[in-house]
């Protein structure tokens, strides 16, 4: 996957949420730096996995790319066009090309609407179809995601979690997008259902040539579905590379710690697995540590370098980006 057209490019993306104080006059006293300078791209047709622990800014990244939050800084290019400067009708038009699948299949479907209304709404919003054509299209979509086409008149509460997630997928597919942000689409599902949804997403990708940004915290799922994987920590990407390189040769100490936490389904190997246990808590994103954000918990940090100088996020060769002073060949001696 070394070549291929770049579909989405994220440049120094920043999403800060203001912290305010005061009852009548809101004073701005700081920012939660949920996403603090991301650089990456997604190629057409690939799946980019985005992993990291809770609160590291994964979901915010997905939503900022789709312009559900207007980013504080940086830019998102979709097919070369800047989304952050786009407004009104042009942006509305672009939204047809990018969709989202949500984590919670209960909260993401309006309980008062029928499946037909939910799946058909995107088509109505864009005035693409109406009447019988719309109904037929919705029925086809339901079949595409593996549901019975006559479920169209039912309400969300009549379905199980997995079926509801399929409805969510059908809604995302309705406008024939190129790019779908999957925001932990399987985290709320039973393990037995997770595999079904993953397989569905993979089939749809093949069938429609979709591009995914797959946000998750389950490393084995991400390994299964992704072509390349980005690891986030405290609003920044610390490592980004192809799936195999990441799992075989993780360079960032945080990635190493994360991977060491994955249980191996083989008792002989599992016994020898060494866990790297990180101490301390994730620092507050309102006040991230100086230098490398990870140095407060890093088992191998270099005093005088890591706590002073922020490591650059660079390609050290072979499509392997990493932000760590240790990983830089020119620095390892120091």
């Amino acid at each position: 996957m070394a070549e291929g057209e770049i579909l989405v490019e994220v440049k120094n993306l920043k999403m800060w949420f203001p912290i305010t104080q005061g009852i009548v006059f809101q004073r701005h006293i700081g920012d939660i730096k949920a996403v603090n300078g991301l650089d990456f791209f997604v190629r057409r047709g690939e799946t980019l996995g985005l992993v990291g622990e809770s609160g590291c800014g994964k979901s915010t990244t997905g939503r900022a790319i789709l312009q559900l939050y207007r980013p504080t800084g940086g830019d998102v290019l979709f097919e070369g066009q800047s989304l952050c400067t786009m407004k009104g009708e042009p942006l509305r038009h672009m939204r047809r090309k990018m969709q989202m699948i949500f984590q919670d299949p209960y909260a993401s479907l309006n309980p008062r609407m029928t499946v037909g209304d939910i799946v058909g709404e995107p088509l109505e919003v864009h005035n693409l179809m109406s009447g019988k054509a719309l109904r037929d299209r919705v029925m086809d979509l339901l079949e595409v995601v593996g549901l019975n086409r006559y479920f169209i008149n039912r309400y969300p509460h009549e379905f199980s979690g997995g079926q509801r997630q399929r409805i969510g997928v059908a809604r995302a597919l309705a406008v024939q997008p190129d790019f779908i942000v999957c925001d932990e689409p399987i985290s709320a599902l039973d393990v037995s259902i997770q595999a079904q949804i993953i397989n569905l997403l993979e089939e749809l990708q093949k069938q429609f040539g979709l591009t995914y940004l797959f946000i998750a915290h389950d490393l084995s799922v991400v390994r299964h579905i992704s072509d390349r994987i980005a690891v986030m920590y405290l609003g920044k990407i610390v490592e980004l590379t192809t799936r195999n390189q990441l799992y075989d040769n993780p360079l960032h100490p945080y990635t190493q710690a994360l991977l060491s936490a994955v249980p191996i389904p083989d008792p002989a190997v599992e016994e020898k697995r060494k866990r790297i246990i990180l101490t301390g808590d994730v620092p507050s994103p309102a006040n991230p540590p100086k230098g490398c954000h990870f140095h407060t918990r890093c088992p191998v940090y270099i005093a005088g370098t890591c706590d002073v100088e922020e490591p650059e996020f660079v390609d050290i060769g072979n499509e392997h980006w990493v932000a760590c002073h240790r990983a830089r060949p020119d620095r390892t001696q120091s």
Partner: protein
Amino acid sequence: MSLLRRLAKNRNGLVGLILVSTYVLVALLSPWITPHDPLTMHIKNRLEGPSQTFLLGTDDYGRDTLSRLLVGARNSLKLAMMAVVFSAIVGSILGIAAGYLGGWFDTVVMRMVDILFAFPGIVLALLFVAALGPSEENVMWAIVIRSIPTYARTSRGPTLSVKAEEYITAIRSVGAGSGRIIMRHILPNVMAPIIVQTSLALSTGVLTDATLSFLGLGIQPPAPSWGSMVSQARANIEFAPWTAIFPSAAIALVVLGFNLLGDGLRDTLDPRLRKG
């Protein structure tokens, strides 16, 4: 199952529905069913007790109490209805806009609502009518002033909670505009509490109208109004109690009816209670 049938299964709702529909029916039909002209004074029959000619007796001018009650019903319903419909529309628009837009607009609207809430409702209405002078129209505005804040608060709550739902994010990510989000997603969720509130506001409206006319600030005599009928009857309450009892009972029954109907509607419309 239709709303009406669900409502009829609820005992409070059923009683409320019967009382309210009787009231509305009587008010609508009153020009045709009054046995006497409500303004004609039967001088020979002053302060007469209930009889075959005057079913509910006569007042101190010899006017038929029943006829005056029937026409009074029409007057108070008309006032309360107009006032409540107006406040429902304006109040819910304010509440939904405040909840949806948030920010300074929300702060300004809700603080104004707080100010109006700080006054006891009846004092506010009194103040209003006393300042602008007694007239039917001003009574209506007094009821409006009393009801708008409740509507604004009632509609803001569900708006806030629906706005935060993920299905709103989903439809925003598709590119749906605010108009669509409000009409298709927020309004259906706000509707149920608004309907309940309307029943309760009508009870407050009828009561406010009665109170103001009792104090002489409402519909001006000789036009019949329940409040002024009770007020006039006070002088003769010892030897002609029917002049006070019947209008008072009418006020009490109508207010009770609207409250019971409101309770019944709340129980039937609340999806959380329906599931259980």
